[in-house]
């Protein structure tokens, strides 16, 4: 049994890794998209430069915004980074942790909290686009979150726990014997991941065209370091979702101890899984057009029914 101290140290190391690597994933997807469009594209390090630039700038704030508005970016980032504590990024726990930090339900709840704070902030500033972006984002959230829970539950039933780390450890021991429910849950997760990461069939991360944007609409009133926090939170959320998919369906190569070789292997496996999933996001984004907003419920409905089927096959 690992001690509380190693548990906390590992969680902190994982959080640091996710926060540091998250902009790189976005950079990778942008580079991939540029390549597929026969452009040279910005360097993969561009998101870091953008963040550094934003951190150096001052803050401009709407007169109508309440004092709470200033706190929102930090709270959003905090809620998003906290979710990494519930994920097996590099280490799989050996048993129930002495200091349990939370499970998949808390993870989804924290993501919902970040979404809620962001929407509240957008409404608080009083801009028209903020309100519109917030209302759209909440509509999408309403459709994504229950389906995400269903998909997670369908896997959790097979592992007998909702702790993602334990789930990954137990499923790794099962030698990845995939069954129909796993397949359907994976398909559901891949559909929902597109919505949760704000990618093209649902939202377009590149555009600031007012009629099409969901997530970007909520960021318009933020500036400077506050905007940097929210942008970083968006990168982190994307990596968290990808890690969740990897932990639920490809729990391979997770480290158990602290030997350097083991950690290096886990790091390599993590990088491979994230690159594979990020490539999927980039390919989908390059080959599909954005759906009309009123068609989005149908697209996400497919994810919901897939997740429902996965749970039905597992439980009924």
């Amino acid at each position: 049994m690992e001690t509380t101290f190693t548990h906390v140290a590992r969680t902190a190391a994982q959080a640091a890794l996710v926060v540091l690597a998250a902009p790189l994933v976005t950079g990778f997807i942008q580079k991939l998209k540029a390549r597929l469009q026969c452009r040279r594209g910005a360097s993969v390090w561009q998101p870091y430069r953008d963040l550094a630039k934003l951190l150096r700038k001052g803050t401009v704030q709407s007169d109508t915004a309440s004092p709470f508005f200033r706190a929102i970016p930090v709270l959003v980032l905090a809620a998003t980074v906290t979710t990494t504590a519930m994920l097996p990024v590099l280490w799989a726990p050996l048993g129930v942790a002495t200091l349990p930090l939370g499970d998949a339900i808390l993870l989804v709840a924290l993501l919902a909290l970040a979404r809620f704070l962001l929407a509240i902030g957008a409404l608080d500033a009083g801009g028209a686009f903020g309100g519109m972006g917030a209302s759209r984002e909440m509509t999408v959230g309403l459709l994504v979150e229950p389906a995400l829970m269903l998909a997670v539950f369908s896997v959790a039933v097979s592992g007998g726990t909702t702790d993602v780390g334990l789930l990954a450890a137990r499923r790794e021991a099962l030698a990845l014997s995939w069954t129909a429910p796993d397949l359907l849950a994976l398909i559901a997760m891949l559909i929902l991941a597109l919505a949760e990461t704000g990618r093209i069939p649902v939202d377009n991360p590149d555009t600031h065209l007012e009629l099409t944007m969901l997530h970007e609409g909520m960021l318009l009133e933020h500036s400077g370091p506050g905007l940097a926090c929210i942008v970083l939170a968006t990168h982190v959320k994307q990596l968290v979702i990808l890690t969740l998919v990897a932990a639920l369906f490809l729990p391979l190569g997770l480290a158990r101890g602290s030997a350097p070789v083991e950690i290096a292997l886990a790091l390599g496996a993590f990088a491979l899984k994230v690159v594979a999933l990020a490539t999927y996001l980039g390919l989908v984004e390059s080959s599909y057009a954005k759906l009309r907003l009123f068609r989005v419920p149908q697209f996400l409905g497919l994810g919901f029914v897939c997740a429902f089927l996965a749970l039905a096959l597992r439980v009924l």
Partner: protein
Amino acid sequence: MSVELATRLIDVLGGLLLFTMLLILVAGQVFRAIYAVAAQAVFLGIAGAVLAAATGNVDLWIIAGITIVAKAVFLPWLLIRVVRRVHISREIESVIPAHLTLTLAAGIVVLAFHLNASLGPVRQAITGNALPVGLTLILIGVLVMASRRKALVQMVGLFASENGIFFTAMAISQGMPLIIEIGVILDVVLGALVMGILVLRVRSSVDTDIADLESLKG
């Protein structure tokens, strides 16, 4: 091939069949629905081949081959030809809203599992979820037929429903006798041909829509 491996493969293929079924259900364009039903027929053919390898039943090899040739190649080709020839609009119009269809599909899943449970123990050739999956496929196929306006898409629903019947038959009894299977496939092909000719003829002589036939009812 061992029976356990065959059972697992059939299980996964059942999942893929269900997914293609959902794709047919949410397809917004005629071509997507046709491609999805072709993919479904390919998975069905693979399922037949897996069962043939597991049980050593030669008939199943023939049925798997016919399924892939007739349902995954010939019928989709025919449907695409008809769509190209009559220049119908490629948007699928449905009688009830799409989200309601999806809700009904979720209800059908529960219903199929309930039916399966109420049947009591059924001696299946392949254990697992094959029977409820097959039932779900049949019923969602009927849902597609009932909820779409275009004759072509209703035809796609019929093929999908038929795929479900084949899957159920294979999983429960290792396939029906060869002569019956061939007869059923011939029926489907004939139905598709008649539908294709009818659509082409109706279109060329009176230029109407299936929904217009409603007004002929007394």
